[in-house]
């Protein structure tokens, strides 16, 4: 199996935006990670320990890997929710810790896997909170805020829920509403942690549609953790497969998703076929000794 290491960059893509003038800029990288170690207090070993990782600009990148492979932790590190023990994360070529907190939140949005809000909050009020990084300490709502909220509600397709209280919504509706809040932030980059887990099929597709539209119509760079490798292979422009906190493989889904990958990373014996779309047929879980 041929390995494309992240350091090589997205070599397979000719229409990638490139910035050849700036030697410090990794070609087409929205986010560039180098020698990153992420851990939690009380744990000796880092949960994520990766040499290089690139999130290409203007593309949808999916992070996949088995439970405990460090997908969510990596995402937290990229979003500044977790301070790295070592290494650096560059957003647009600039170390993320050098951003002011609101400035950073205007560049990069992050939607956690599980979110809580008061049940009595209305959808519109919640989406308005997405404008927080665009406001000063005492600012009220501006016309720009209203317009951004309209666009977000429209794009997420939750216009009919506008007046509803969060406590009345189904899980799928609630996820779309939270995505609308993140959209109202109007960032160039959006990170999403398992946005489709626990949703019914219809809402999974709705969520994916919204993300795709956001990427295609507004050129937003998306990095999304997906539980389901089939979904990731069909949906994403790039895949990053994580294993034990390190990047195992990286590239176009067609190059990355293979029977070897499923065996090595996921511990699954599966058949992988490529027609118009990748088809993954899991056969059995491999024993621990085989992995």
């Amino acid at each position, binding site marked *: 199996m041929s390995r494309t290491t992240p350091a090589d960059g997205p070599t397979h893509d000719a229409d990638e935006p490139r910035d050849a003038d700036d030697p410090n800029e990794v070609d087409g990288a929205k986010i560039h990670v180098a020698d990153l170690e992420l851990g939690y*207090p009380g744990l000796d070993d880092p949960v994520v320990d990766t040499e290089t990782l690139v999130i290409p600009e203007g593309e949808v990148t999916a992070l996949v890997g088995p439970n405990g492979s460090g997908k969510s932790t990596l995402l937290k590190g990229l*979003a*500044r*929710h977790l301070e790295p023990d070592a290494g650096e994360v560059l957003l647009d070529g600039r170390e993320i810790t050098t951003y002011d*907190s*609101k*400035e*950073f*939140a*205007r560049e990069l*949005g*992050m*939607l*956690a896997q599980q*979110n*809580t*809000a*008061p*049940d*009595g*909050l209305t959808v519109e*009020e*919640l989406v308005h*909170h*997405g404008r*927080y*990084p665009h406001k000063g300490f*005492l600012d009220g709502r501006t016309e720009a805020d209203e317009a951004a909220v309209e666009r977000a509600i429209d794009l997420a397709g939750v216009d009919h829920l506008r007046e509803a*209280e969060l*406590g*009345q919504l189904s899980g799928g509706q609630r996820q779309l509403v939270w995505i609308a809040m*993140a959209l109202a*932030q109007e960032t160039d980059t959006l990170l999403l942690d398992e946005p489709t887990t626990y949703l019914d099929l219809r809402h999974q597709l709705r969520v994916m549609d919204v993300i795709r539209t956001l990427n295609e119509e507004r050129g937003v760079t998306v990095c999304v953790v997906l539980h389901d490798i089939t979904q990731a292979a069909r949906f994403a422009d790039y895949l990053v497969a994580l294993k034990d906190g390190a990047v195992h493989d990286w590239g176009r889904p067609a190059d990355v998703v293979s029977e070897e990958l499923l065996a090595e990373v996921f511990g699954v014996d599966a058949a992988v076929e490529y027609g118009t779309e990748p088809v993954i047929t899991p056969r059995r879980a491999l024993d621990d000794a085989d992995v």
Partner: protein
Amino acid sequence: MSDGHTDGTRTRSRLPATPSGLTGVAVASLVVVALAGFVQIRYGSYDMSWATAWDALTAPAVWGHPRVLLTLLLGEPLARALGLYANTDGLATPAVVVWTLRMPRVVAAVLVGANLAVSGAVFQALTRNELASPYVLGVSGGAGLAVLLTLVFFASASLLLPFAAAVGGTLAFLLVYAIAWKRGTSPVRLVLAGVVVATVFQSLQTGLFFFLGDSAAVKTALAWITGSLTGVEWAGVRLALVPTLLVLPACALAARHLDVLLLGEDTARSLGMAVERVRFALAALAILAAATGVAVAGLVGFVGLVVPHAVRTLVGSDSRRVVLGCVFAGPALVVVADVGARLALAPLQVPVGVLTGVIGGPYFLYLMRKHDDFSTL
């Protein structure tokens, strides 16, 4: 649940969060404060009729002469210093009783109620727990201990007590924060640290009772620990007024940040909030409000717990509306409770904190029975 809304969809246990809800709270509270305040002004050891009380309250000798009014409010030395002094000897006895003895107590009750209720509203949002009160981060333990220490070691310095209470409460809050801090804080860590500090301080405080010299000192100590407005004069009002006018508007303005914090720390951080800084600033504001109330009346209980909760059921979860509602509803509870405290067992006066508990407790019980989603915000 007893009211039959168990059909899968979530029960809407709250009234619609309309502005009229807030207006309703404000108007009803103002009416209650006015009525209870008038009762407070009419009754007492100096007997007067309703008409006399009304005349004294509206006395042209007071309202017609701004300098007389200011001298009453500011006190003679300050009024003289500002060149606003006017002789108040000409006032009729009922007017003197109303304006120097009974009125300050009503105004003080208003300030105490507003401060404690707003402080409670902020803490309930900060800790995401509707059972939080202004005292959740150790203020009660610190203030009580400081009062007891002052009474034991500086028995004659009763003027120091308000400052001792406020400073003691604030120091305890800082101690709680220091204990809770480990690469940042969390609501749960803060509440746990608050419980630890309050428990230790309250034990020390109880121990100090045995060192109190006489029964008068014991009564003073008890009045502080239970919360009392007995003998409050304009000086007490002045003490509380300046911080109140700074802190309460600040809390109302900062309410938007509370709303974002209510979305959880991760979301707040994703939205660009410097969570620890904002949380500390908001907690400090709330502590200042609590300390202001404590400095005037001691540790009046239950106001900061029950009022924000009641207001929230009427105006919705929007923090700004809750804070504004508390500014009105807090005074209503404390003024009514203080009427009971002063007049129910006259001539004996009981601490107002006893009455807020007696009124607030059953109401709280009622809320608890009525709403099944009670403890989460």
